[in-house]
């Protein structure tokens, strides 16, 4: 067995112990009413009264919007790290990043022209 795998093993054990200990602690320390009424069995939603079932149909448009959102979310991740080390990289990095943003913009224009962001 490789030496590096030991840390993986330790990680697995620690995560299992942590997860188990939280559940056991909740069982010991938790205060629960003994009576099983309708109120104790409902889902806890931060004090609000739960309304309707959670098994809902979502409009597929959410999916398209989420996809376009992820595109620019990831772009932001790259932009921050790029900005941090920009002084060391110089001119080439600036050209690279604008190329990257250009490609993403092209994808955004494509999504716009296909009507992916129109909500009908």
């Amino acid at each position, binding site marked *: 067995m*490789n030496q590096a795998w030991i840390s993986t093993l330790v990680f697995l054990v620690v995560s299992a112990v942590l997860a188990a200990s939280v559940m056991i602690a909740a069982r010991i320390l938790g205060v629960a009413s003994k009576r099983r009424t309708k109120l104790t069995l409902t889902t806890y939603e931060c004090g609000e009264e739960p309304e309707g079932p959670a098994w809902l149909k979502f409009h597929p448009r959410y999916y398209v919007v989420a996809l376009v959102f992820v595109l620019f979310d990831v772009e932001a991740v790259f932009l921050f790290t790029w900005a941090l080390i920009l002084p060391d990289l110089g001119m080439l990095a600036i050209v690279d990043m604008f190329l990257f943003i250009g490609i993403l913009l*092209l994808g955004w*224009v494509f999504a716009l022209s296909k009507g992916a962001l129109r909500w009908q």
Partner: protein
Amino acid sequence: MTITIEDLRVLTLPLELSALLFLVLIADIATSSVRGKTFTGWLTFWGLCVVFGLTFVSPVAGEAFGGRFRADTWTLFMTRWFIVAGAVVTLGGIDRIRRMASRRQGEYNLLLLFSLLGMVLLIGALDLILLLLCFELSSIPLFVMAAIEKRKGQEFKLMLTAEGAIKFFLVGVVSTPIALLGLALIMGMVGDSSIAALDGATTSPLLKVGLLLLLSGMGFKLGVVPFHMWVPDTYQSAPAPFVAFLSTAPKVTALVALARILVSGLQNRSELWTPAVTTLCVGTLVMGNFWALGQRSTKRLLAYSGIGHIGYFMMALLVGDNTGMAMFLFYVVAYLLTNIGTFLVVEAVCGRSEDESIDVFAGLSRRSPWLAMSMLLFLLSLAGIPFVVGFWAKLYVFIAAWRAGYSWLVVTGALLAIVALYYYLQIARVMYMNEPKVKDPIAVKPSLAAGVLICLLGIVGYGAYPRPLLESARAAADAFMQTRSATVSVSLR
């Protein structure tokens, strides 16, 4: 690791393809009419022709990303043939896609280019992770392309298309994690993700499990028996020009990925993978060819025949040395040209009526003699009859396998080639002997006819004079088998 301009120079060919991709994307955004969308198809075709021409102008050789990607004689050879396949399929499919998916022509061509880009990157990849990423890039667009036709008012056909596409999609996405898990185990046992390091793997049960998982995952993509169930359904329901692509280039890509790991990576450890590959090879050869016998649908028959052909590919991989790889490459080219041509003829004959049973071919020799003759030549090439290119391909694979000591496998393959001859000639019999139901000749669009003609010239030309192809295949195979960095050279041929 930093990426330098030199790295990008090695990636010239994939970058040229990406540039074409952006041009097509911009053309798709800029146009809104059906006519303009068809222009994206022509742009794709002519762009691929230009990229093909550019491969002759400035071939690049070298390594990029610290030896994780290499451009050499091998990548040049494969890139050229993938581009030819993409260009011919685009040309042959322009009319069908305009007719059946007029609003989505731009997407179709874009997805085809994305898939091609993945393939072209994969053949140069010398790293397991890069290999898998490229493979995904080449296969995910295909899921969308299989479902590109939305039919209004033809509920049954629509359901059939959806069924084939969903089967393809589900099998595709489920097999990827299986292959990925296999790769993860292999990487864990080797301690490195580069192909060159595979040789130093310690023989352990986990490594064997990893290889087995990898083989099953790739087996689904390849459609080898027993992982073939999706193949006939998808081929039957998808548009024929797309099936011409699906049945050739992605299969070759998956085979190349397997060959990269098994034949070139583990070339000195062949005892690890030959038993499993031999089993798959025999099963695929036998079952593919026998299931094809009873088919009444041309597309299903060709699907099972394609499964059988994967068996011959695997036989060439089993040889496991430079000669075996060269014969594998010869078979790749023969199969690309022949199978694309066959499906384009199927599109010409059955595309309008959407009825692809063998009976539609009845009396084709009297309706359209040229179409019948080209179909006959394609079928002969698939069956391996002299003197079309398929004959040389089978012969070379048999000779290489015989010399490597697989005489029993060669006998099995030869016997099954006779079985295959029966069902191929059944189509020929219907074309030449049966009375046609309709007398008038079939109207074939010039673009589709040109696509068929290119394939026809290829199989007849290389059938009459296979030497140039054989020599370039040998040079490419020699470059392929070199896993460790060496003086990378490239020949202009």
